[in-house]
């Protein structure tokens, strides 16, 4: 399979990532249980009557996809592929509450209609009047990575030149309560979280959306070359290094060729061990982390991919992401490694365009 290019990148997150100078204004957070994505001024993009009806994930995606297409100079993509772990959970939750509260009577369809996981991809297609290939992946933690893989296949198969790929997840009230209940979210008494050397389990939950245009050809605006992706549902802790070495070998890249590794350290002591194992493989590389900026969620890697794009293009690394002191003159290759609570592992290899 040949590589493809990431020709635009747009992100709505806990940080002010729509702003030009966001790199200089990243604020880590470790003392609250949940982090909310910063809402852009939706009125600039969406008619007010629709804003009220739209859930946050649809709104964030609408804005992020708009910017991604605009930046790439693409009006009609040849495919729309969206990844989301939880789908439209706000509207699902609203409809479910109505069903239970009203004992299955007097229900209206709006929330149900907007509850399906493919609402975001469908709404984007509707907005663009785009009849092209349209897919939605809903993996636990690798939805964006599978979307990238699919985009690569569409381009390699000659079916598409430019693909809109995005990831999005939103928080909902009751789901956050339930995540506290089952200790997915860190207990209050275990805060502030230590992202790199945590001794307690659980994470700080975030949300956000990131959209990219993947193209067959390099453009003046290209951020990175997407070289390859590897996904595995399950990796035993002692297999972590083989998993990564195998991927690098497959791509004819040596460990020392990797200039920066972006690791998904989340403050969950148990599953962060995978990242510690991974870090051991790269003593001469810049090691980076990001979930103190984005929070953990099913598509948190949308944020790290967005950051990787900027690091490669701008050739700058925000200090706040640094785990070690290694700094290379040029950042050519970045490896991203992510999983959620030890499940659904993914590796993404990006190269400077």
């Amino acid at each position, binding site marked *: *399979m040949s590589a493809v290019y990431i020709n635009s990148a747009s992100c709505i997150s806990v940080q002010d990532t729509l702003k030009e100078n966001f790199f200089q204004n990243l604020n880590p957070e470790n003392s609250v249980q949940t982090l909310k994505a910063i809402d852009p001024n939706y009125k600039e993009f969406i008619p007010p009557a629709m804003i009220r009806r739209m859930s946050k994930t649809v709104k964030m995606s609408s804005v992020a996809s708009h910017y991604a297409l605009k930046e790439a100079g693409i009006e009609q993509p040849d495919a729309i592929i969206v990844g989301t772990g939880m789908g439209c959970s706000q509207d699902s939750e609203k409809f479910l509450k109505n069903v239970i509260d009203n004992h299955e009577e007097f229900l209206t369809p709006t929330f149900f209609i907007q509850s399906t996981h*493919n*609402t975001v991809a469908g709404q984007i297609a509707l907005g*663009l009047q785009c*009849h092209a*290939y*349209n897919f939605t992946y809903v993996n636990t933690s690798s939805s964006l990575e599978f979307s990238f893989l699919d985009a690569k296949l569409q381009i390699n198969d000659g079916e598409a030149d430019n693909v809109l790929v995005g990831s999005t997840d939103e928080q909902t009230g009751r789901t956050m309560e339930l995540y506290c209940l089952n200790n997915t979210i860190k207990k209050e008494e275990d805060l502030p979280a230590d992202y790199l050397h945590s001794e307690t389990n659980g994470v700080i939950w975030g949300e956000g959306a990131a959209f990219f245009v993947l193209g067959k050809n390099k453009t003046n605006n290209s951020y990175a070359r997407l070289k390859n992706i590897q996904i595995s549902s*399950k990796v035993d802790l002692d297999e972590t290094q083989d998993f990564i070495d195998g991927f690098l070998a497959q791509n004819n890249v040596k460990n020392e060729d990797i200039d920066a590794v972006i690791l998904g350290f989340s403050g969950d002591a148990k599953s962060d061990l995978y990242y510690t194992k991974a870090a051991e493989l790269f003593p001469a590389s810049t090691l980076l982390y990001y979930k103190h900026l984005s929070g953990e969620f099913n598509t948190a890697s949308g944020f790290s991919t967005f950051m990787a794009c900027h690091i490669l293009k701008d050739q700058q690394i925000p200090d706040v992401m640094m785990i070690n002191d290694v700094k290379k003159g040029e950042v050519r290759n970045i490896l991203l490694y992510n999983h959620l609570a030890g499940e659904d592992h993914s590796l993404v290899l990006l190269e400077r365009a």
Partner: protein
Amino acid sequence: MNQKIAITGMGIISSIGNNVEENFVSLKTGRHGISDIQMFETRHAGTFKTGEIKKSNEELVQQLQLSEDNNITRTSLLGMVAAKEAVESAGISDINGYRTGLISSTSVGGMDVTEKYFYSYEDFPEKQKYIDAHDAGNSSLAIADYLGLKGMVSTISTACSSAANAIMMGAKLIRNGVLDRVIVGGTDSLSKFTLNGFNTLMILTDSYNTPFDNDRKGLNLGEAAAYIVLESDEVVKKENKKVLAYLSGYGNANDAHHQTASSENGQGAFLAMQQALKVSGLNKENIDYINVHGTATPNNDLSEGIAMIRIFGEGQVPEFSSTKAFTGHTLAAAAGIEAVYSILAMQHGVIFPNLNFKTKMEEFDLTPITELKEKSIHHVLSNSFGFGGNCSTLIFSKS
């Protein structure tokens, strides 16, 4: 397509049978699975009939020999039954012996449990293990785990076209050499959430669904799981595998008309069928049978019929039937079970009847096959369309 993809195994559980053989017997003898709701609590139990599988979760857990402390919900339980049969029928003993993946689809995931304890999880500590089982991706990971599969696992949720897209993605992964072997299909259990959702849209019939009938009143929901196994030519040759059929074409398009309704001219369906024919390299005259989406809603059957006429020409639409009168509409699993039925149709040389059809629709001259019909079938086209404008078509060819 320069490379047909071999299908070497299949497995299914639906309201008309717990395995492939039972499903085939029901299809052949015209025994449908639409019945009164018994297995989950809803005030609509007496009003709407569904294609419900009359096996409790406890029975399924026992059949699958799962440990008692499992947190597997009904969607995954059904998926495990079907995926296990598919893997066994493909003669796979070492699941990780080749680069093997699972692409599964679902629309509800663990909603059937979430809706029971949504407000009361705090009071039921022993049920809190199910909180993690809510998200759709969890169901595929659980099925992979049950099969002992460690590798590429993905979940697709494009509403009622989901399983067709899972099959399509699996084919692309093999075609591009990413995987050697992939189990593809979908699973969905019934839930109060979905039943009430479809009810608010007023597209549920209060009787038995009648696809492509002028007086059709809507769909029956159903639950099911079905998977097929796709393998690369190299593995087929090396292992001397029996090929059940080939996946020879696929197409995916978006109707871009409305979040839930299909367009008047069936544009998305038209484009999906057109693309699948193009990928297959077949002429439209080569299609011997269409397993239509045919949900029996006024909107779908009209839109799909118009799209078929646009593709094949007035008076030239191949013989077709909807099998949803047998099973109900099984949502994210539908294209999986209809893939199995398409393969059975080719293997046995029969078209399964479109039950409950009486009167031709007034908008066009299309009559489905209403009695079991023997016919040599070389190529089947199978349609699946969903909310969000998602339209997908698969073409299966005889081995």
